Structure formats: structure tokens, C-alpha cells
């Protein structure tokens, strides 16, 4: 009896040892393991730069990065040969954008058109990602304040300084569908502190759309269109097409647009040109980035 128990025990031990060993060996085959290092995979480069063309895109500049950008628009093609199809004229905006952290960026700018100053904040609320969580779109908020310093015609009252301000609030919703295609919709509220007369509302609603189509690794076709729900009479919806061309340290953009201004108020609500009449302007944007504050990985180390 005792012998039998001993043999049984031996057998059991032998089997269990063999089993355990087999199991541990199996566990120890590192190559078979799928190293599940799945931290969230945040979608990047939905658009190539922080503006689609005139309007804000879902992208931010990186934390600690200063982006110096020059937007330049020629005159309308429809002016004909005397004005060299618009190339004799120019309007521009120079601006500085800065990334405070990976979600928040701010920027200031000055436009020659109507001598405007503008300042904006843009904050990433939701970022498109896969991995741990699957979120198929990104959402940001952009708020812009615009100050028009152009001297107005004399009025029979003294205007307040605040009368020269207008504001834009935008919710940016974008999705990078593939490396080849991104879309964005931008519900926009524009507020004028003062309008010409009491029949004109102070608030205007519009919906922007943006599209990026990859033509090659370095060239993307982009379009931008804003549909206005309530309109200032005498103005057109802005439609812009462009090419984003990446050249190492900067992004260069060529575009054709019917709007003159490059601030939210002027290009969304006060676009004078019409595509059908050929009031198109060539334009380009140059952006160059500078590193102001190095990312934390690089702060104490010089690799």
C-alpha cells in the first residue's frame, strides 16, 4: 500500500514537473510572444500644417516650436494684362505661432489688408487614436480675436475702441481616413462688435470644410470651402484650392483663392471675389519653424 502511494506520488511529481517545465519553456519563448506594447497610437499629420489654407486646421505646432509664417496673396486674375493678371498687387499676413504644449498653441499676426491685428488660441480637445482606445476623429477649439486698425470713414459719433474688434469661435472636427485622405468640418461663429446698421445681425454662422488628398509623399492637394448660413450681402463663399509641398524644414503652399483677407472675419464673411467671374488670386504660404524650447527628452541630454 505504502509502496503504491510512493510510486503514485513519484509519478505525479514527475508528470507535474514535466508539465510545469514544458509550460515554463513555452512561456520563455520570447519570440512567440506578441510583445503587446500597445500604448495609444495617436494619429499625426492629418493635415500638413496648422492652416488648411486660410482657416485653422486640426494640426498644432509642436510644444516649444515657433512657427514663422508668411501668407501672401496676389491681386485677382480678372484684372487682366495691365495689372499683370493680379501679380502687380499683393496683400499679406505675417504671423508667429507658438506651441505651449502638445495641446495648446497661440499665435499673433498682422495683415496688410485692412491693417488688421489678430490673435488666436487653439486647443486640442480630442485626438484621433487607435490602440488602447479607438477614437476615429480629432476635435479642437480655435478662438480668434481680430482688431481692424484701418481708419474708418468719419462718423457722427465717437466709436469705442472695442468697435474695431470681431471674433471667431470654431470647433474643428477632423479625421485622417488614410495616409491619402483627410477631411475636416468646421462649425464657425463669427461675432462683430459693431455692424453697419441695426438690420444686420452681429453673429454669423458658417460651416467650413477641408480636404487633403495625397498626390505623392511630399505633395498634397487641399481644398477649403466655407458655407455661410446667414450672410452679409454682397459677398461670396470662399473657395480655395492649394498644394502643400514639403521641403525638409518647412512647408510651402501654393494656392488659388477668391478671398483677399486672411483672417477669419475677412475671408469667411467678406470675400469679395467670385469664382465664376474669374476673381481668383494666386497665393502662397511659407512656414519656417524654430525650436524655442527643447522637448523634455532632449533637455538634459545631448545625444
Amino acid at each position: 500500500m505504502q509502496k503504491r502511494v510512493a510510486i503514485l506520488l513519484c509519478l505525479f511529481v514527475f508528470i507535474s514537473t514535466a508539465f510545469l517545465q514544458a509550460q515554463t519553456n513555452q512561456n520563455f519563448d520570447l519570440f512567440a510572444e506578441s510583445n503587446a506594447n500597445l500604448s495609444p497610437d495617436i494619429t499625426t499629420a492629418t493635415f500638413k500644417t496648422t492652416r488648411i489654407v486660410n482657416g485653422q486646421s486640426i494640426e498644432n505646432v509642436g510644444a516649444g516650436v515657433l512657427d514663422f509664417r508668411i501668407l501672401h496673396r496676389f491681386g485677382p486674375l480678372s484684372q487682366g494684362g495691365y495689372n499683370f493678371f493680379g501679380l502687380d498687387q499683393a496683400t499679406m499676413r505675417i504671423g508667429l505661432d507658438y506651441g505651449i504644449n502638445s495641446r495648446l498653441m497661440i499665435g499673433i499676426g498682422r495683415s496688410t489688408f485692412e491693417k488688421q491685428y489678430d490673435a488666436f488660441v487653439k486647443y486640442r480637445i480630442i485626438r484621433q487614436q487607435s490602440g488602447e482606445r479607438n477614437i476615429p476623429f480629432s476635435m479642437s477649439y480655435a478662438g480668434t480675436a481680430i482688431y481692424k486698425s484701418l481708419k474708418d470713414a468719419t462718423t457722427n459719433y465717437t466709436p469705442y475702441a472695442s468697435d474695431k474688434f470681431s471674433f471667431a469661435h470654431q470647433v474643428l472636427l477632423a479625421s485622417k481616413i488614410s495616409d491619402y485622405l483627410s477631411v475636416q468640418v468646421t462649425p464657425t461663429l463669427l461675432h462683430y462688435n459693431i455692424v453697419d446698421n441695426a438690420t444686420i445681425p452681429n453673429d454669423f454662422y458658417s460651416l467650413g470644410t477641408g480636404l487633403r488628398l495625397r498626390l505623392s509623399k511630399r505633395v498634397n492637394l487641399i481644398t477649403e470651402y466655407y458655407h455661410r448660413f446667414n450672410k452679409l450681402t454682397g459677398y461670396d463663399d470662399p473657395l480655395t484650392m492649394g498644394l502643400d509641398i514639403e521641403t525638409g524644414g518647412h512647408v510651402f503652399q501654393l494656392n488659388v483663392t477668391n478671398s483677399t483677407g486672411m483672417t477669419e472675419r475677412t475671408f469667411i464673411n467678406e470675400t469679395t471675389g467670385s469664382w465664376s467671374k474669374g476673381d481668383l488670386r494666386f497665393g502662397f504660404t511659407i512656414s519656417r519653424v524654430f525650436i524655442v524650447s527643447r522637448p523634455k527628452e532632449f533637455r538634459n541630454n545631448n545625444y
Partner: protein
Amino acid sequence: MNKILLFASLFLVSFSVNAQKIYATKNGQIVFNATGGIEKIVAVNNQVDSKFVDATGQIIFGVLIKGFKFENQLMEDHFNENYMESTQFPKADFKGYIKNIKEVDLTKDGNYNINLEGTLTIHGTGQKVATTGVLQVQQGKTAITGEFSVKIKDYGIKGLYIGEKIASEAKIKVNCKYQN
């Protein structure tokens, strides 16, 4: 008698379980340098997943390509979009063996030179790689450091600036401190 057998077998079981040990880390570091011109092209990844087994010398390193941080965000975007195509090939890994693991005494402090051989997969392309490194044991803590270079074109990575602004060979530095 039975009790002795039982304890003996239990002891054996536990021994056989402990015979192999996995050293692992989830925050190893890989730095690469592909500077070809004036502009510094350096990126660091502090989330390297690595494991090795003391008995067999089996070793793996794994990284997410998007985990590489550049000083310049734009450069990081271009790295992911134009060169590494990281939505298509999100990971890079090395699977191989420490050939001379038997010469390493993981219980004794010291710096041991190790020879590594295996397959390095970047951009979905695997290449056989043999390199050397140092395994350091210090007060029970284990770390592996190593440095090697890879020819970028060997991994099917294409781009305008490779061989100009971007060096045709990237230097890769590995530094992993393992938890026991």
C-alpha cells in the same frame, strides 16, 4: 518516507521553475542619429520593450516608431509619414540571442562583453544583424548597452534626402536597464 518524497519533489518542481529567469523592461532607451549635414537628425525613444532569458540567451527589443521623439516636431512628422511609413509599419523589433550568455555570471557584479545575433526588423523588412554590447551587473541590477549602425536603404526606406541631409547609415544606441 512519503513526506520526504513529497518535499523532495516539491523542491524539484520549484527548482525547475526557477531554472530560467526573464529579465524585462518597458522603458529602455534607443537613440538614433542619422545626421548627414548641418541639421541634427536625432531621435530618442524611452519606451523600449525588452526581455531576455538567462538560460537560453534569447533576447528581444521592440519599439513603436511613433515613440521616437525629435527636437523638431515637423521632422518627427516627416520621419513618420515620409520615411518610416509608421501607420503601415508601426513597430520595429530585434529578435535574437546573446551568443555567449554562458560566459555571463548574472549573480556577480561586472561588465561582460556580449555578442548578439538575430534579426532586426524595421519598416517591415528583416535583416540579419550581428553586433556586440555590454551587459552590466551591478548590485543585482542588470543593464545592456550597445551601439551599432544600419544602412537605411537595406530596410527599403526611401526618401529624397537619404545620403545627403540624412546619413545613409544611422547610428543606433541602445540602453536598457532591466527589472529582475
